């Protein structure tokens, strides 16, 4: 940093790069550069950092199952960060997502094992719903307490975390313990409640009931998309009274095609084989959840209310919005998504398809970093979650191939977050000018008073 700050020749270029990629990308780049310096200083080997980073990239993307495992690791990040972002946009810091993740996992593990008689078309949605509702309630309570008693959600959700951890431990070791297993875990869920892996989709679709379930989901999605399109002015004029018919008809058609064609097609050709052995359909749910959260927050009235309450509760109250209802709703959505993340880990990733002790290692806390890095933008969250998942997954090979400890990843992530939280640091480093108006964003969360 010894060069003259007035004459840095790269400043215009870096400013342009910063504008193009956004501050998060520049922050990340800076974090990786500093990480490399740390590796160099601690190892004293010029090649250590390139070897480590190449190992990281190879482990995250190119090695066998690398990409697949990176995706598996990023799925819970997506759902948890989406949950956090809904809270942030509504002016709430739901620091309790880790606890809601546990409660969701617990509820799903319970709902998944109550019976083995149900078909997947009923049992899987039931288990998913149980997990989401569990998380929603666990987060809704602090939301209600905030409005009724003024208990700040940062405190109450954090405390609820500990209750959730101990409660889960109690239930796993006592009430819901698998008596046939010498490992401390809940009983495995019914095969019908398991979340499908990509590799198993062709086989699963051979059951007509499963194909029907998939067809129903696709029909619903198609209808939703057509409905959204039908609201555009040019389509609206053309369709006129036939709007309902168009929506229903397209949904029905898509469902029918899916029901007939998908089992045949996937049986004939399917790209996901052994190389993706743990990749599961939670990936699709995570992407859909991102679209859903974007839609809810940006395109609907409840989303507008949530954002208004987040931006200025007094104005929202003056406009006749029910603050209590909106705060509880925001917390419930937030917790529901977190609960769903835990559910997916139980039903799709855990090898016993059950809930063992020591289930998560801080997905929830990483996700706070991810949603900040992505500035609460749902599609930014998809990207940032993949980045964190890939780094978490690639770190092992990095350590194996270069001897650099995988904990360097935490350092890089922490630095990236620091730079995103304080963009002035990055601007100072690269001698960039602050873009006009950037500082005027709404606050992410409110202080103790508000």
């Amino acid at each position, binding site marked *: 940093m010894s060069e003259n700050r007035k004459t840095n020749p790269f400043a215009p270029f870096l400013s342009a790069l910063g504008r193009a990629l956004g501050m998060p990308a520049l922050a990340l780049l800076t974090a990786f550069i500093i990480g490399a310096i740390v590796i160099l200083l601690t190892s004293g080997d010029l090649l250590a950092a390139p070897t480590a980073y190449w190992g990281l990239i190879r482990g995250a993307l190119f090695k066998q199952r690398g990409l697949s495992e990176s995706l598996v690791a990023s799925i819970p990040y997506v759902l948890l960060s989406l949950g956090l972002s809904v809270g942030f946009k509504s002016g709430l810091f739901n620091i309790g997502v880790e606890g809601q993740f546990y409660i969701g996992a617990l509820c799903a593990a319970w709902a998944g094992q109550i019976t083995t008689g149900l078909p997947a078309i009923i049992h899987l949605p039931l288990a998913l719903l149980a997990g989401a509702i569990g998380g929603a309630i666990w987060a809704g309570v602090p939301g209600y307490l905030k409005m009724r008693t003024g208990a700040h959600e940062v405190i109450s959700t954090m405390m609820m975390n500990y209750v959730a951890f101990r409660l889960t431990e109690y239930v796993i070791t006592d009430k819901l313990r698998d008596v046939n297993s010498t490992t401390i875990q809940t009983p495995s869920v019914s095969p019908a409640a398991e979340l499908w892996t990509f590799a198993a989709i062709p086989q699963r679709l051979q059951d007509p009931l499963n194909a029907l379930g998939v067809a129903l989901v696709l029909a619903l999605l198609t209808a939703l998309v057509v409905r959204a399109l039908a609201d555009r002015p040019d389509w609206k004029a053309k369709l006129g009274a036939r709007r309902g018919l168009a929506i229903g008809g397209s949904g029905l058609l898509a469902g029918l095609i899916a029901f007939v064609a998908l089992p045949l097609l996937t049986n004939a050709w399917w790209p996901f084989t052994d190389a993706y052995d743990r990749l599961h359909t939670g990936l699709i749910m995570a992407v859909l959840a991102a679209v859903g959260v974007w839609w809810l927050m940006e395109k609907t009235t409840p989303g507008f209310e949530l954002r208004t309450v987040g931006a200025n509760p007094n104005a929202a109250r003056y406009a006749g919005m029910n603050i209590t209802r909106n705060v509880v709703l925001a917390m419930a959505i937030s917790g529901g998504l977190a609960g769903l993340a835990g559910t997916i880990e139980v039903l799709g990733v*855990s090898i016993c398809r059950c809930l063992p002790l020591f289930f998560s*290692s801080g997905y929830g806390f990483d996700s706070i970093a991810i949603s900040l890095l992505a500035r609460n933008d749902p599609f930014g969250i998809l990207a940032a979650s993949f980045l964190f998942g890939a780094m978490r997954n690639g770190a092992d090979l990095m*350590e194996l191939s270069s001897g650099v400890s995988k904990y360097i990843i935490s350092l890089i992530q922490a630095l990236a977050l620091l730079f995103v939280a304080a963009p002035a640091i990055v601007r100072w480093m690269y001698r960039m000018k602050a873009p006009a108006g950037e500082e005027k964003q709404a606050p992410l969360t409110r202080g103790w008073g508000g």
Partner: protein
Amino acid sequence: MKKVNLLLVLVMIAALALSACGGGSSKLKIGLVTDVGGVNDKSFNQSAWAGVEKAAKEFGWDAQYIESKQPTDYEKNIDQFATENYDVIVTVGFMMGDATAAKAKQYPKIKFAIIDNAYFPTKDSKACDDTAKDCYADGGLKNVTSLMFQEDQVGFLAGVLAGGMSKTGTICSVAGMEIPPVVRFVVGYQNGAKWIKPETNTLNVYVPSFIDPAKGKETGVSMIGQGCDVIFGVGGNTGNGGLLAAKEAGLMGIGVDVDQYLTYAEVKDILLTSAAKNVDVAVYEYLKTVKSGAVKAGINTANVQNGGVGLAPYHDMDSKIPAEVKTKVDEALKGLKDGSIKTGYQP
């Protein structure tokens, strides 16, 4: 765009060439996957890694470890080694049983060793069908060696010591979950005490947890109330709670698994010894069979004969243990070794 692709291809070719060079030598690559405790847990994982390191150093092999952050990482971590062409993968702990079995089937050419999980006869295991006559030979685990320990033998020795040291004639154990290794410890312990003094009274409680020191302590206190003056803590942190109860009452305790004098300093002054499972020795001995080519799938039991289990040193208590008690312990050890003494444990 084309240039970028070309560059990528060149880099990949270079990487391939480099990895190919590495594969040419006869240097074996050993990978160890720890449980969530991590490699510095002062217990199993650390001990297993010590065994791997010792063998790797001696035989000139490469050794690496991956720490599991959570149970859902087991498969992924084993896979990291497998896809990097490791020759031997050691997995630590009962919990990794299913993941190890699944990966062992997927990579039949890699040798696997798992600590504390015997796949057979274990019912309701995902490792193989209940119809298999032997999970290893015909159940699909032809490349898996289970490293097991005869806890009843070292429990017996601890019992001899406890029975010899007790003034009240009542000895007790605060045990963790009632799973086979814990039961072996307890049964051996009680029979050992009765071997040195047949009239010894024995107490035991299985607390259904390994992570509940408060309950362990409570159990210990209540046993002290019934006249017990030597407590064997045999159940992770729950057992540690029992040792703490002994410490606070000024009585004697016996540690478990590792030499707890070194790992649990709070109670070291009341520890007579620890009933240790020498995981490092077992792992090292296993790797020696890999080196010599004598490695076999199946259950590989560590016992007093091969030094896989044994009492830890007496440390500070050495001067307080009478010579005749020490003689009795040595006599029991000799008897267990030559088979003239049975621990009384029936599986």
